[in-house]
């Protein structure tokens, strides 16, 4: 069965979506990622969508679901690399990806995940979520 690979790097999981996903493949990724977060105890997930030339409501919903599920599983998700034309279209479509943390590129996304982890590591008793 076709699958999007999930790479592990330290306490983070990395996903680069490079194919035009049909809906079932998107659902499989959602399931695989949640399983992998639990298996590895990952504290962060980075999803690179720079190769996606559209994000429709189905993919938008998948990104929202992954963010919400990972949060429940004590991991932060950052979606990076959205193309400008995709951002314009997504907002006009009526989706602004509420609850999905984004960064311009992989480097900035990784910085957010590292900062979140450091923050949580240093303030173990502090329950404040790293979100704004």
């Amino acid at each position, binding site marked *: 069965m076709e699958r999007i690979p999930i790479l592990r790097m330290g306490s983070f999981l990395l996903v680069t979506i490079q194919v*035009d*996903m*049909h*809906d*079932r493949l998107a659902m499989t990724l959602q399931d695989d990622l949640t399983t992998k977060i639990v298996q590895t105890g990952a504290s962060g997930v980075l999803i690179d969508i720079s190769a996606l*030339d*559209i*994000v*429709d*409501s*189905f993919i*938008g*919903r998948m990104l929202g679901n992954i963010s919400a599920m990972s949060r429940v599983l004590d991991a932060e998700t950052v979606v990076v690399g959205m*193309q*400008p*034309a*995709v951002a*314009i*279209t*997504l907002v*006009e*479509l*009526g*989706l602004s990806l509420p609850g999905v943390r984004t960064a311009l590129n992989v480097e900035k996304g990784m910085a957010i995940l590292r900062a979140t982890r450091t923050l949580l590591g240093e303030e173990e008793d502090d329950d404040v979520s790293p979100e704004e």
Partner: protein
Amino acid sequence: MSVRKSETMPIRTQADIVHVRQAVRTWSVDAGMRLVDQTKIVTAASELARNTLEYGGGGELLLESLSEGIRVGLRLTFTDHGPGIPDLELALKDGWTSGSGMGMGLSGSKRLSNEFEIESQVGIGTTVRITRWK
């Protein structure tokens, strides 16, 4: 207005939604659309193809390349023979869905198009036609 080229594609499986996206991308590039316009019509096509499959039980897409004077555009007509939509006004509301979707497909693709028409008859089927000019 004249139709310069046309093609019909089936929408029967999830893979067909991907084929529709790819075909609409190719046609919008051929029409000379800029990237943002390509992205908008491909996204609208993806939403409507999914509706045709999920709610209409499958159907087809008629792709047409149009020219009118000096302007060129793409017209996409999605047809299914599914249950039809009893209340079109409700179906076009943001966030309303009869299924498990987000309810952005129909209203969103209307916003992403220059022209939008929908016809639906309960028990007979639904036709959605969108046009985007370059």
